């Protein structure tokens, strides 16, 4: 099989298109590069969706935590404590076991039957866990930033007659984002790396459709040689991480564009905010 054939057979294997059978013997480098790259689709899927949805939940949690409503504050505190205080790995297992316990026939709500079986699939169940997890970590970052919004900014907004929602949208929120962005970049990178855990926790890889590390592990197990598949996967992750840093760096520039001499590079300090 030439490399071009391998590519057309396996480039979309992780989402169920192309050749059904994974290579069993005579593994070559091309197969490993193509299949592991195919698995990266899942890592990107989890990371992009979890970060996108988590961003909004985190903003809400941070505001709730800084707000005056005691009940909301306690709820946000508890949520953040549970998801930041326990390992993601255990959260995956717990969520999977909980979702499996849902009645298989679906739940009856107001006469409609709501199907539940899709929740035990990785694309939905693991995504929910990742969303909640990144919401908690980002909320902690956003809350810290919200607390350090300069008092003068708020007073200036008051002087201009801004209040309530418009003050939040135009002054508080952009400043909070600007202050939180370097730490949030680290969180995004960490979450992206954490997506590799999905198929090693409870969630099964349906029809061997897995992520990059799932396929790397597959090859390392079959060839009994960790020195090819894992470096290939590592290479993919390094490139993707650099892209992510670039993307977040350009957002950072935009957030800081009104400040002279600011908005330089985000210095990436891995995981040290967690």
């Amino acid at each position, binding site marked *: 099989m030439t490399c071009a054939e391998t590519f057309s057979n396996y480039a979309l294997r992780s989402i169920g298109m192309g050749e059904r059978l994974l290579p069993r013997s005579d593994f070559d480098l091309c197969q490993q590069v193509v299949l592991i790259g195919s698995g990266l689709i899942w890592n990107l899927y989890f990371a992009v969706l979890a970060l996108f949805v988590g961003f909004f939940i985190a903003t809400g949690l941070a505001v709730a935590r800084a707000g005056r409503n005691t009940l909301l504050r306690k709820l946000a505190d508890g949520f953040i404590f549970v998801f930041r205080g326990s390992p993601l790995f255990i959260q995956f*297992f717990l969520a999977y076991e909980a979702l499996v316990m849902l009645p298989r026939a679906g739940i009856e709500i107001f006469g409609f039957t709501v199907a539940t079986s899709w929740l035990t699939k990785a694309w939905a169940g693991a995504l929910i866990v990742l969303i909640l997890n990144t919401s908690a970590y980002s909320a902690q970052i956003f809350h810290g930033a919200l607390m350090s919004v300069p008092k003068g900014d708020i007073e200036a907004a008051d002087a201009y007659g801004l209040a309530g929602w418009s003050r939040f949208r135009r002054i508080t929120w952009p400043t909070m984002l600007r202050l939180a962005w370097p730490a949030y970049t680290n969180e995004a990178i960490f979450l992206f*790396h954490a997506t590799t855990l999905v198929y090693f926790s409870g969630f099964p890889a349906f029809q061997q459709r897995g992520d990059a590390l799932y396929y790397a592990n597959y090859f390392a197990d079959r060839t009994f040689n960790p020195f090819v598949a894992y470096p290939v996967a590592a290479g993919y992750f390094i490139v993707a991480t650099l892209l992510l840093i670039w993307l977040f760096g350009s957002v950072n520039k935009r957030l800081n564009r009104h400040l002279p001499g600011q908005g330089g590079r985000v210095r990436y300090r891995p995981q040290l905010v967690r």
Partner: protein
Amino acid sequence: MLARCADPALLEGLPWLMCYLTSGKHMMFYASFGTVLLLLAITAPLALAFGFGGALASRSRIAPLRWFGWLYTSMVRGVPDILFFLFVPIAVDQGLEWLRHKALCDSDAPIRQGNDFVVCAAAKLPLSTDPQWVHEVYGFALAVMAFAVVFGAFAANVLAGAMRAVPRAQLETAEAYGLTQRQVSRRILIPQMWTYAIPGLSNLWMILIKATPLLFLLGVEDIVYWARELGGAKTSAFTYPHPDWRLYYFFAILVFYLLMTWGSERIIGRLTRRLSAGQATLAGEALRKGAA
């Protein structure tokens, strides 16, 4: 275990549960919490040592050593730690067996034959004649190695940052007093950097706690292994039949980790307070004002 637990089929309710929770398998489950604590106790100092070496290497004046230090500290930035957890144990295992093969075997056969990794019986690690506990200790040691390498790289990042944070003037003053490079490092740089390293290191400790369930991926019989083993549905063929209880077991593990992180956070809070007392920092100033 206990005499009244001899025939659990006759028991019901609370006595049954008491007997169930004190069965031999459960004792191994409880002991596996000790495995986690043991891993933490061994890995933390080892990772700190690795990190120290890495940080010093990245500041070295010998170029190859500096490159190595740079590579070591930056490898964890772009690559998921889980990848290292999968890679390091098998790589170390094969590396050791390869070295022993070179030293102990006199065959010229290549080690990699197709998809097999072949060394002679004398070079196997651990030897196939070794008792079971040697295999378990070896597996645990490989896991510790993987954790130490990954967290050593994190610690190297923290310590290198802390070394950079030590005011340059202090080092220059020491040089002006005629101290050699080595003396400057030992007497000024290293004692002074700890203040800057503590926040990063305490963060690292929290991450280390939350990484311990990954022992399961490395094939060690840890709490996750036992939770899956004990929680799975048991038919009446077993002494204690029960439906799928894995949810409760994982919930117990979740509570264990929440307690661990909560306790650590409190201890670290106290430590930080004590360390910032008398320091010329904002935290130290706040403490001084609070006391007055």
